[in-house]
């Protein structure tokens, strides 16, 4: 009972260091685990579009034909889902928060992807060489298919015989 229970703490905070920092002059240390903004290493990126597929906020768009990887930083929620989905580890989360901008804009990164080689016509395609193991496997599959067909035929004949 009684008043002034907080007196000691209040007096101590009068003489101790403030709990806040003087922000623009002093900045707090950033922890390594922090998620500030997303960075794409476009040289490693293969524009596969996995990041855009898993993004819960639809912040990413990937256009493979045009070679563009685009992020809308105003939609991004820094969940790092894309970082985990990236097969080439080209996406990383930087600790610093997105810098302040005076106008809303998206960030597009461009990469020229090599065009896919044209598929040769059926006659020009070289025949596939099979290794002995593969040939044996193919023969086994063929034999199994033939056996199954024969079995089915026998079964259907039997069923017809039964119906008669």
């Amino acid at each position, binding site marked *: *009972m*009684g*008043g*002034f*229970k*907080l007196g*000691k*703490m*209040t007096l101590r*905070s009068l003489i101790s260091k403030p*709990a806040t920092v003087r922000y623009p002059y002093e900045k707090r240390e950033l*922890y390594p*685990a*922090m*998620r500030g903004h997303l960075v794409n290493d476009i040289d490693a990126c293969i524009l596969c579009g996995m990041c855009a597929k*898993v*993004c*819960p*906020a639809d912040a990413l768009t990937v256009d493979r034909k045009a070679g563009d990887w685009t992020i809308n930083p105003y939609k991004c*929620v*820094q*969940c*790092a*889902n894309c970082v*985990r989905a990236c097969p080439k580890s080209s996406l990383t*989360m930087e600790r610093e928060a997105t810098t302040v901008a005076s106008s809303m804009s998206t960030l597009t990164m461009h990469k020229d992807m090599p065009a896919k080689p044209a598929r040769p016509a059926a006659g020009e395609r070289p025949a596939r060489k099979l290794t002995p193991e593969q040939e044996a496997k193919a023969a086994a599959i063929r034999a199994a298919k033939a056996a199954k067909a024969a079995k089915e035929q026998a079964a259907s004949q039997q069923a017809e015989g039964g119906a008669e």
Partner: protein
Amino acid sequence: MSNRTVIPFGPQHPVLPEPVHLDLIVEDEHVIEAIPQIGFVHRGLEKLVEKRDFNQFVYVAERICGICSFGHGWGYAEATERMLGLEIPKRASYLRVILQELSRIHSHLLWLGLLADGFGFESLFNHCWRLRETILDIFQETCGGRIILSITMVGGMTHDIDDALLRRACEKLDDLEREYHTIVNTMLNDDSVRSRLCGVGTINYEEALSLSMVGPFAKGSGVTHDMRTTGFSAYGDLEHFEPIVSTEGDCYARCKVRCEEIYQAIAIIKELVAKIPHDGVGQAPGPKVKPEKDARAHVLIEQPRGEAFYYVRGNGTKFLDRFRLRTPTSQNLGGMTKALQGVDVADVPMIILTIDPCISCAER
């Protein structure tokens, strides 16, 4: 018969952190009836489950509320894991419980600060929120975010928190506990605080049961209803757990329950950190994993404000058919209107604060 007046309370009011509107029907200085009205922050997040696949929806579930954000992500992930039949490693369960208890401390400290601000004890408010920063720093160091942690995923945790960081978090909690003694002493023993809280807005045990109240609001009236006693996740591995209950049923009792729950949460965290196993934190389900048609599951977890219910139903694709969340605040609104009947107009802010309403949870 004296004149009855209707006094509108909210949606913007100094004591309300979130918008809720109350029509107070007042006779002289006494409230006869309070009619709540919600619907100011409805965002349709339950419907969004049809547009985001079940892995992405964890991040949406986390954004249901800013204070119990981790709990919502966890509840959704746990329900989905049950629906898919996924087993998660023990370490992931332990980490989830540790983070949930940290959320409880930060939620209760925030609430204690709001309460102090509500009855005009400005310095107590500032000290509560200063201590809350310790928890937010722990979150930032271990998970990478301060409020939205984004560390839960269906199938486990996105990354491990190593033992050194967990031990450091425990050391920070030791420091917090030392300073917290002073705050609890002020909250529970100071004359000015007691005169404001004792005997205000009393709800007895029977009323609490019949209005199906949950969380510290019900525990203040002697109801021993706590989902942690069911032993789900890592709560079953605790040596001893008993919900904190007070029998008076007034604002002071609810304040006492929350004050002591912080000590309890600190003890749970220390116990779990001491015996956390090392069996990985799980991995996301592969791209082929889809919930079966009509597969359904539910989970009940104890949020800082009480029992929350999560229900999910699959439809054979990677999008879910239904996600349902019943929040503690929607359970407690009935109790709040009951507690408001017959009190002085000056006590209304105190009573609304002591149920700790989280309107954005209740409206989703």
